[in-house]
């Protein structure tokens, strides 16, 4: 019985893994038409120009937003947690949210690096000679950019979560102070 369950679980995992791999492969090698290949070759220069502009703008966005997100952690969250701690109050939940936020920030940095490398690779491809490879590289960069956006949304959620934790902490502190009087 236990063996049968284990076999079912392993088979299920294999099927899921295969399905995911196949779907990724299919997404990357979406069928291209002759017209589309011609279109890529014709507008190669303008597309590359657009990509170069996006590359530069995203780098600027990464620098400015990254600085802002980093400051939220170092200049506000961690400092408030330290102050709570130095007053011998319970900062456990605030610290937990800060740690989650910092972990999300690390993922954001890594995912951006992966995306940038992917976009740089796409820019290096000669789209007049290798339109299909170029199309696939751009599709890959597109997926990775979407992942960076999803990381940004998570960071915003953690910023809200910290505010909720802060409000709860303040309510608890006021109740404690009120009961102490």
């Amino acid at each position, binding site marked *: 019985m236990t063996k049968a369950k284990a076999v079912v679980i392993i088979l299920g995992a294999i099927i899921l893994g295969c399905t995911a791999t196949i779907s990724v492969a299919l997404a990357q090698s979406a069928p291209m*038409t002759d017209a*589309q290949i011609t*279109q890529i070759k014709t507008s190669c220069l303008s597309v590359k120009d657009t990509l170069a502009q996006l590359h530069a703008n995203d780098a600027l966005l990464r620098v400015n*937003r990254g600085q802002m997100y980093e400051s939220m952690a170092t200049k506000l969250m961690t400092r408030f947690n330290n102050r709570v701690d130095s007053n011998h109050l319970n900062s456990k939940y605030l610290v937990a949210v800060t740690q989650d936020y910092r972990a999300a920030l690390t993922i954001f940095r890594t995912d951006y690096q992966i995306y940038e490398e992917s976009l740089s690779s796409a820019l290096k491809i000669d789209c007049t000679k290798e339109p299909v490879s170029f199309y696939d590289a751009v599709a890959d960069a*597109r997926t990775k950019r979407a992942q960076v956006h999803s990381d940004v949304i998570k960071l915003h959620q953690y910023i809200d979560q910290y505010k909720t934790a802060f409000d709860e902490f303040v309510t608890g502190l006021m109740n404690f102070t009120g009961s102490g009087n």
Partner: protein
Amino acid sequence: MDENIKTEVLEAVQPVLSFWAQRRYLLLIAISVAIAMFLVSVSMALYNSSGAAQLDLSRPGYSAVTSQAIKNDSNFANYPDTGTLDKASIDEFRALYDAQAAKAKAVDAFSGDPLSPTALEISAPATAGPAH
């Protein structure tokens, strides 16, 4: 005659230098260049792998946006991490946090889909048929 004696004496006194000893300055320069190249390779590898390359807006191709980078975030005040925690300090933190959180969330960074075939105008024309 005297000159010949002088030359013989000089040859006898001077130590016989090996091939590499004779070229020691050349060797010194070659080793120095090799060490410098090795160190540059290590630093370039670190520059690329650490993610610093992605933040370096002085690279070629970024000149148009370099001036827009925020170089000084002195507007972002540091909350003091020492002192008592009273109503005033809590209110101060709330004001600081709300202001900065609003700024952080004001931009939905990396949103949109600028890399889609439609946005890049590389999608198949509506009239196009499948590839042969």
